[in-house]
């Protein structure tokens, strides 16, 4: 008699790999394959729908049929790891980049990556933003040592293609703008965030993006400014704080004063 675990592994093989031999042998009597197909179809269609909702512009670029075909392969190869489907799809952009039938659309992976960031920002946890007044107690000489924790909705992307321009044009059904896209204009530094009014996608200049990216990675203000020159970081910080891009802060310890007496 198969254990529950063996049955569940056999069912998984049927759903993911169309290998129904083992599970069929566990069923009561002879069961036509199309009864098992219902489970497989539900599995594939549910997750394809999840991906469609998350990647609508990607789908427009390749067409519904192509998208469904790619999604079917993706869900079989990389099924969800959690029962919370908001988390599902993070690997889809990378999958598309290495999916041979899609490589002719060079910017497809970048558009999908942007859509994933938009989706993540949309579902990011509700966290109260850091208020400027909370920084009021920090002495001026200590300010350079402030480290921020970014708001969970903030995403920073560096894209090879102008995926943000393509994404906007397709959402607006603006063929004119789409026709003017210059694919060779170089990398784009994009920020995605959720504001009270909805998710915003913004293109930043190199310095502004690098400064914010370093802060979001946990660098202190001082450390984030290394290698950045002629940049009005005070204005940038004021905007980040005003728009709630940080959730909290801490101070990195000051440089250690060497006390020979304490060296053992």
């Amino acid at each position, binding site marked *: 008699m198969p254990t529950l675990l063996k049955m*569940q592994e056999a069912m998984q093989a049927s759903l993911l790999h169309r290998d129904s031999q083992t599970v069929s042998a566990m069923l009561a009597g002879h069961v036509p394959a199309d*009864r098992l197909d219902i*489970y497989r179809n539900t*599995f594939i269609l549910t*997750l394809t729908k999840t991906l469609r909702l998350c990647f609508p512009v990607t789908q427009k670029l390749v067409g519904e049929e192509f998208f469904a075909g790619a999604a079917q392969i993706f869900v079989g190869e990389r099924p969800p790891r959690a*029962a919370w489907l908001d988390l599902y799809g993070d690997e889809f952009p990378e999958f598309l980049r290495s999916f041979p039938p899609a490589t002719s659309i060079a910017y497809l992976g970048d558009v999908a990556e942007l859509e994933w960031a938009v989706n993540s920002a949309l579902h*990011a*946890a509700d966290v109260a933003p850091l208020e400027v007044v909370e920084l009021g107690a920090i002495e001026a000489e200590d300010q350079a040592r402030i480290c921020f924790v970014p708001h969970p909705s903030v995403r920073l992307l560096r894209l090879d293609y102008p995926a943000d321009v393509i994404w906007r044009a397709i959402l607006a059904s603006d063929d004119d703008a789409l026709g003017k896209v210059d694919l060779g204009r170089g990398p784009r530094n994009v920020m995605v965030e959720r504001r009270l009014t909805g998710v915003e996608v913004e293109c930043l200049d190199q310095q502004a993006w690098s400064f914010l990216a370093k802060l979001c990675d946990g660098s202190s203000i001082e450390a984030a400014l290394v290698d950045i020159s002629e940049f009005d970081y005070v204005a940038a910080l004021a905007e980040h704080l005003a728009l709630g891009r940080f959730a909290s802060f801490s101070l990195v310890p000051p440089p250690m004063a060497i006390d020979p007496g304490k060296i053992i």
Partner: protein
Amino acid sequence: MPGPNVSAADPIPARAGIGLRFQHHQAVLDTVPDVAWMEVHTENYMGGGTPLRYLDAIRRNTPISLHGVGLSLGSAEGIDPAHLERIQKVAERVEPGLMSEHIAWNVVDGTYLADLLPLPMTEEALEVVCRHVDQTQSYLKRRILVENPSTYIAFGNSIIPEWEFMAAVAARTGCGILCDVNNICVSAHNHGWDALAYIAALPPEAVGEIHLAGHSVKTLADGTLLRIDDHGSRVSDEVWSLYRQAIARFGAVPTLIEWDNEVPPLEVLLDEAFHADHLIGKSPKDSAHADAA
């Protein structure tokens, strides 16, 4: 904006409610429909942003029940503690009147299979489910309801009739039963069971909620007709008839209209709920459930 009309964890009244879907968030907020309660899928409110903001506003007027689809009570490898924690967080925020899950599984080898998959009706599966219901109830510090499945296949090693399995889970863990009358109808047709006998075998004192939904009929390659539980149409006459039998036995119970595919305008759901309320009004009033209304 008026203050909250609905107190925290307001009980779900023994009347008809509707499944709240994203398509209807704005319409519900704008029109405040005359419906006694609503139910949402727990997994749709685990993130932040707009869905939770709508739900926060809607539950000021309407008690909410949380119905989970992803806990996988029947997983041989155990339930995912991270998912249980997510459910707990939603419950803290939403303060639901009822919480429910399914007699099914969908996680194996750390993979989520995105459907409510059938269990073999064995003593092993019964023990696994009971262990996980115990774990869930002690973690959430509350009683949950478990829903009977709709199934298309049966396992050769099944030895416990499904209705006995349901009753045993309730008896061993103290959980309640969410009696999905549509699922009973679907499974009874698909496996040749007697739907009325199924209802008659459930312990009335354990039944805390009823689900009603539409299903479709598919013809298989060998000519067999299979009922598909697709929640994509009105409740069938056959299911309404079973529902009358169910409330005659269980008394007035909170009854949900579910619709998940090709979701119609809100008015259609309200119309179905109105019909269920009408039938509840005609059911015997002497049950414990009716007193709670």
